[in-house]
């Protein structure tokens, strides 16, 4: 299959910036008439100038349609971005979240006028709690990292309630960068534990790393190598043994749905990424939603408000009467629009469907792993004796050593095949890492095409590395000067105009 991304371009740029389009006097929206009423705002507070573009509606629609054509989403093709779970996003979910009864309700409306919204949140919470094996779930966090931050606040509140402030959070060396940053934001020092030769947490090192100072261990399971932490019960015992909590990074939950649950493994705090596991779109960066589940002993610390059901009055209500709550981490109650989509997804899948999601996702990853192991240029650094879970991490180190082609170039060349790159150079414990997560929504033929593409790239690396180093060429634009972009940053139209004026 050939691929050529759309390209709207003149000599010096792709589609012009919106500031370079339109003409003074045009407008792209109409407004109702203003009622005559005296507005008493002193002249000194009134703005004198505002430079915004002036475009008509058709110009605007064409401009942003063209931009969208120079972008690549899951709907465009295969998107094996490891740890990001880029699965298909159902269209019905979009339709439901856009209903006026969802999009046009205000968070401060009288409770009797938002019973449907509260019911949806209440039920979504129950379903997520069941999926993760926890007692309660807070739906407020806007993203996974936001959930991690909340998790750390909960850990702090828990230890404080026990009368002991703790200072350290333990994180494996294979963890997502957010784990380190979230722990630090909550005021904890980060202690790193190494992985063992099997690509799992080194149990002996963990024993040494934990102490009475340990507030929590943050762990992703399956981990970022796509491997299940099979010593999880020992890990839990070690952390709980010193009075610490176990935090579950839910980025990889797609690898275990219906097979096992974080709560059953011994985790105390769990975050979900609804924009990964529960098929809500990632929107080119967000909005996401990162609900946080907790076991019974941490329930009282959850942010305010929580949704409760009053069986006598048959009414849902927002409960703010929570004296030990950590308070708030976001205005209002969470990214409700995203919650609607995740709820619709769960209702369409059911228990058996979610289990099949994981089975199909794990099979797809193992299929890629086994097929690619035979290809010269790629290898697996850690354990390959058993199965992987929903993703697999290859190393392009042999390719680099033999033919001088790094993982970066493999990733870029893949774009020419009409496929998105895997995550690369992560996790950092794998040199020349290519982290591949196919998800369950890809058919076998797409996986075969992907495997064939990686084989072809390896052949090119061996025989014609020049072609590789010039990639990508099928995209709207070729490789960019990213060093210059950060060294001489131009971050806005005003800054660009200034730059041009000075030049």
């Amino acid at each position, binding site marked *: 299959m050939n691929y050529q991304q759309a390209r709207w371009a003149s000599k010096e*740029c*792709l589609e012009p*910036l919106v500031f370079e389009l339109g003409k003074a006097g045009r407008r792209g*929206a109409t407004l*109702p008439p203003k009622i005559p*009423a005296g507005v008493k705002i002193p002249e000194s507070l009134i*703005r004198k100038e*505002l430079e*915004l573009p*002036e475009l008509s509606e058709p110009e605007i629609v064409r401009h942003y349609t*063209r931009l969208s054509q120079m972008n690549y*989403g899951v709907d465009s093709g295969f998107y094996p971005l490891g740890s990001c779970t880029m*699965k*298909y*996003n159902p269209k*019905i979910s979009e339709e*439901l979240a856009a209903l006026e*009864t969802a999009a046009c309700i*205000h*968070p401060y*409306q009288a409770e009797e006028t*938002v019973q449907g*919204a509260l*019911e949806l949140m209440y039920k979504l919470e129950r379903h997520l709690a069941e999926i993760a094996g926890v007692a309660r779930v807070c739906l407020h966090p806007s*993203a996974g990292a*936001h959930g991690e931050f909340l998790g750390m606040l909960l850990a*702090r509140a828990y230890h404080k309630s026990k009368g002991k402030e703790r200072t350290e959070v333990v994180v494996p060396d294979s963890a997502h*960068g957010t784990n380190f*940053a979230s722990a630090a*934001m909550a005021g904890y020092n980060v202690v790193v534990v190494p992985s063992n030769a099997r690509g799992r947490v080194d149990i002996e090192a963990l024993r040494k790393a934990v102490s009475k100072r340990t507030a929590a261990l943050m762990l992703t399971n399956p981990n970022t190598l796509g491997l299940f932490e099979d010593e*999880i019960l020992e890990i839990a015992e070690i952390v709980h043994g010193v009075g610490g909590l176990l935090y579950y990074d839910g980025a990889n939950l797609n690898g275990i749905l219906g097979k096992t*649950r974080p709560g059953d493994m011994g985790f105390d705090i769990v975050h979900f990424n609804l924009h990964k596991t529960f098929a809500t*779109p*990632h*929107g080119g960066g*967000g909005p996401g939603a990162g609900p946080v589940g907790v076991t019974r002993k941490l329930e009282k610390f959850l942010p305010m408000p929580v949704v409760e059901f009053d069986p006598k009055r048959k009414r849902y209500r927002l409960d703010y009467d929570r004296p030990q709550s*950590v308070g*708030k981490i*976001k*205005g209002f109650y*969470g990214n*409700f*629009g*995203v919650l609607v989509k995740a709820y619709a997804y769960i*209702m*369409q899948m059911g228990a*058996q*469907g979610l289990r099949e999601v994981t089975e199909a996702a794990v099979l797809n990853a193992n299929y890629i792993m086994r097929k690619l192991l035979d290809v010269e240029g790629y290898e697996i650094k850690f354990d390959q004796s058993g*199965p992987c879970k929903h993703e697999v991490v290859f190393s392009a180190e042999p390719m680099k050593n033999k033919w001088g082609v790094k993982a970066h170039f493999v990733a870029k060349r893949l*774009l020419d095949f009409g496929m998105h790159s895997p995550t690369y150079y992560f996790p950092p414990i794998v040199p020349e890492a290519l982290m591949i997560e196919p998800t*369950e*929504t890809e058919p076998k033929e797409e996986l075969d095409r992907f495997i064939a593409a990686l084989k072809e790239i390896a052949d090119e690396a061996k025989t014609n590395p020049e072609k590789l180093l010039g990639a990508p060429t099928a995209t*709207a634009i*070729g490789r*960019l000067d990213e060093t*210059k972009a*950060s060294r001489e940053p*131009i*971050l806005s139209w005003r800054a*660009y105009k200034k730059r041009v004026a000075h030049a």
Partner: protein
Amino acid sequence: MGHPYIPNTAETRQQMLREIGVASIDELFVDIPKKIRLTHELNLPQAMSELEVKRHVQAMLSKNKPFTQMPSFLGGGVWPHHVPAHVRSLVQRSEFLTAYTPYQPEVSQGMLQALFEYQSLICELTAMDVANASMYDWATAVGEAALMCARVTGRRKVLVPELMSSERYAVLQNYAAGPGLEPVKLDYDWSTGQLDLSKLRAGLNEDVACVYVENPSYLGFLETGVDEIADAAHKVGALFVVGVNPISLGLLKAPGDYGADIVVGEGQPLGNPVSFGGPTLGLFACRDDPKLLRQIPGRIIGMTTTLDGKARGYTMVLQTREQHIRRERATSNICSNEALCAVAAAIYLTSLGPRGLRELAEICAANASYAIEKLGAIDGLEAPIFNAPHFNEFALRCTQPKLKIEKFNAALLKQGIQGGKPIRKEFPEFGETALLCLTELHTKADIDRLADAAAKAVGAKR
């Protein structure tokens, strides 16, 4: 039977298993210790077809009463506005909707350019030089701004207005707690709501990282002494942070023109639905100053060229500030943000243009003026409670003896009107008070209806 989202049928799966020499699906899960393996299905409702889910969710949500079916006067941090049809239709373009963060710039120029345009438009609107590609919401943007100011100045105190939203303050407290910052509330003038300048000056010293004000304030009045506040803050080397409702900037002086170093705010009203309070869009912009630039949280898109220097292109920049590289020393842990809401904001601002945004702001302010006039004339009500200019929100006090604001609102609701947000719990000193919001959604008839219903609710003669 197969599921429409899972292409590989049971037969294909068997074939794949055979090809890789695995006997069964179960064999792929042997690494999960038996003790924790689920032996039963999860306890979830029976899977539904698309039609059944559609009916189920529609029926559930139909128990909500949207503000499109009943005049509502709620704002207070998210504000209802009309979202032009083409804004939604464009952000639903699936190449935008179903993309991840634009890690691969060559194949993501569309999203990168749209976000660059968003950043540029926010800079124009706020009169700042740099904006990031979004924070989660206004409240977290305030938290991140406080952390940034502390890093830039090496100081710990964060001065905030007593009259800021209690929710935003609660979020700020949680963001401030980690590195041990100390938020301090600043007193206000009882009759005007204005920040008490003499008390501000008394509280300013070299421990202060920043002074934060909201303009328009949470309770709707304008902060008229912003120039003096900026000067006072800068005199002791503190940064000046301003929180805004961006719609107001169609009419009001931009924070960059009165000395703001950082501007935050809620971008939801720029083309995004209220949606029960989320997704929201945290605005974050600052002056062009290398000291500030190094400490900004979040994704930033920059303009660059192709490697040959010939063509313009866009990419994520300054990533060495971010968590995936800097880990525990990152400026923030944020990675997923509110990118699509930012694209909606860009399309919205472009659609209104300078004149449209001015007109919209004037309509909102005129509606609020008219509502103040009508409600203020009713015996038993007082509006606004502050003697100061207002934008599109104001506080309404119920002075009728023994009439609680919740009862007043309940009486409005009986007449098919959603009143303002009661703020007695946040600010008991103002008595039976609610915060009302007016936008272009309100017609003159809606406001007249509100006034009639309010008069009935307080039992007043008009």
